[in-house]
């Protein structure tokens, strides 16, 4: 069955540093991979989508890479800020079908 692994341990970094989160998957060939942000008590919010034929996608301070050979995506937040503290979820999908989510990694950015 499909399996998505995200680091279950919280990532603690200092403000201004680059945060790097990892998403690994097995038994799946996604057409695209998405990253969402979830704050406590709220629903996930879409951040970025990267397709299987794309290596890298950027949006402001965010960068996502997608390696379909390694079955891995890396999510980077540069110049991190305390406001970036949240749980980040990766999700895999094909077409307009359903998404499969990872458990998420909590990011804590200290001032």
């Amino acid at each position, binding site marked *: 069955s499909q399996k998505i692994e995200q680091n279950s341990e919280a990532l603690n970094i200092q403000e201004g540093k680059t945060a790097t989160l990892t998403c690994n998957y097995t038994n799946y060939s996604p057409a695209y991979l998405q990253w969402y942000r979830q704050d406590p*008590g*709220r*629903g*996930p*919010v879409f951040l970025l989508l990267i397709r299987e034929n794309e290596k890298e996608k950027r949006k402001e301070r965010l960068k996502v890479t997608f390696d379909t050979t390694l079955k891995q995506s890396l999510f980077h937040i540069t110049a991190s800020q305390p406001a970036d503290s949240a749980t980040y*979820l990766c999700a895999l999908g094909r077409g*307009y079908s*359903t998404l499969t*989510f990872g458990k998420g990694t909590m990011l804590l950015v200290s001032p």
Partner: protein
Amino acid sequence: SAVISQKPSRDICQRGTSLTIQCQVDSQVTMMFWYRQQPGQSLTLIATANQGSEATYESGFVIDKFPISRPNLTFSTLTVSNMSPEDSSIYLCSVGDTGWNEQFFGPGTRLTVL
């Protein structure tokens, strides 16, 4: 984009009772999804609800336990029936449409079953 609201935001219910959760969208959408998120776990898809057709349930979820209605393109309900403490969770609805890839989520309903 779409703005989604859910009612109730939270509830505490007794074992054996049922709760209906409402999901309202500010625009017409093709697909609505219902998820469950248990503490420390990922979002687990319960079912997909498209207007005019029966909901499609994921493995491990059945219509008798989680009946869903989708009367129009902006509204859906999920009922959690004959609840037990194991049903305590956050229930989220989300929406998607052809031409989109991302989903937009509601704020969730936090359910506690005693």
